[in-house]
């Protein structure tokens, strides 16, 4: 399965990926329209830092995914390609998934868990990868 990897030695923490991610997951799919949508689109990638290390991190699509085990509504699931996907329609916002995700990769919006879906609806692949000016993110 293809996933997005961040090269920690290259990432400068510019947050371009966060913006591109939020825009891609907005209704209008442009920055201009995204900022005035309600609810505001949420980015699934998070730029995080410790001392000199900066990482742009998101769902790792764990092989043995704790969020799926814990999800009591059956909305987290493994897709055919092995990625961890989320059926937002069934989610009740219980945050059992947040409780167990070892990467803190799940965001919350009123009654809805939100996480990286690898831009499954974008034929060219994850938008964060192309948005990164330092080429820290790769999909492979």
């Amino acid at each position: 399965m293809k996933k997005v990897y961040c090269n920690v030695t290259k990432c400068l923490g510019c947050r371009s990926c966060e913006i591109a991610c939020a825009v891609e997951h907005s209704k209008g799919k442009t920055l201009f329209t995204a900022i005035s949508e309600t609810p505001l689109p949420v980015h699934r990638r998070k730029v995080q830092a410790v001392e000199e290390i900066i990482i742009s991190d998101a769902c790792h699509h764990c092989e043995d995914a704790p969020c799926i085990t814990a999800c009591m509504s059956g909305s987290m699931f493994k897709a055919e390609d092995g990625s961890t996907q989320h059926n937002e329609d069934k989610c009740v916002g219980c945050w059992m998934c947040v409780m167990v995700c070892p990467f803190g990769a799940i965001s919350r919006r009123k009654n809805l868990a939100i996480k990286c879906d690898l831009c499954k609806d974008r034929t060219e692949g994850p938008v964060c990868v192309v948005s990164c000016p330092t080429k820290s993110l790769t999909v492979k």
Partner: protein
Amino acid sequence: MEYVIVGSSAAGVSAVEAIRSVDKSGKITVISDENYSIYSRCVLSYYLAGMMTEEKLKYRGEDFFKKHNVDSIVGKKVEAVLPGKKIKLSDGKTLSFDKLLIATGSRSKMENIPGVEKDGVFGLRNINDARKIEERLGKTKTAVMLGGGLIGLRAAYALHKRGLKVIVVVKSKHILSQMLDEEGAGFIQRRIENKGIKVITGLSAKEITGDKEVSGIILENEEKIDCQIVVIGKGVQANIELVKDAGIKTEWGIIVNESLQTNVTDVFAAGDVAQTKDLVTGESTINALWPNAVIQGKIAGLNMAGKNIKYDGSLGMNSVEFFELPTISYGITKPKGEGYEILVKKNDAQEIYKKIVLKNNKIVGFVLVNDVDNAGVYGSLIRKKIDVSSIKEELLNNNFNFAKILPLVKKYKEEFAEKEYKELVM
């Protein structure tokens, strides 16, 4: 190979998936005394609140049994496990097995108070309970919850959403006394009281009044409350009766070893009915929770199918959100005894409370109110028993996140053994 699984919920379903991941052809029979397809009882309160349809209770597709080539028997109870690898069903028939999984879960503990048998007194455990409560809403103005645990409060929240006046009666000093300390619970209690749910603490009901139907309760201090629904949320009790005469060891639940096998060979138990080791305290106990049931079902299933996988223990943890105030607790939240170190951060104005409990520089538990996003990161440090002395000062910082534990991931390679950690480019 003939597998028989009793109970078709979190543990049973997960066992089916596990068995089929290694054994495509063995015969699997799943028996449930409920007359409804696979559904999640955890979301019943959301259904009761009117937030979801009955259809969405189903957490696996209608075709689950067909897809996994399972013989499903519904609406029949397994009455006993018999000698000679057989079980007896409520219709008198017997069924043989090579490997048996008992995944019978638990039921609501109904209190022994006068009046508990009246119409309008419910537990909230299965879909029928939810439907019956729902049917009664039309003639109900006030509902009383006896018990301030997770299920009592979820039911209270649901019925409040449906426009009823709701009163929660708790014997303990504070609500959610199982999962939270007093301080953390206080935030939730204030929030739900502000929104109109009344909480009475330190008292229990001594009688449920009414003729055939409930008309009220009388508290220990003689105070009377009129109500038309009483929901009892006093915890659960494991469904172990079927093994009573089978020579299988029980205490609160069915006692299992690291392989989730009982003291009788080829008989396994998983989920709310199984008594296992607590991963944090090391004590033999039942942490009757969905994720524990799913993982146990999976490991039991794999072992039944010939694998040899060890279970590292169950976790006491939970997550709730009422009126947009999320709270997560995990592990030991109210330490008793020596040697614990407690870190606390509190902001009353923002309703944020974070407490981390450490022992020998390892996190053994936490409570997070209104700032829960990194719960799983702390959780991984608990599970893996990582020494966090190097990042102790950062643990409660507002900007704590996964990156902060990267130095530890680098240092403790053996503990962070999962593929996902190995893939990090650092």
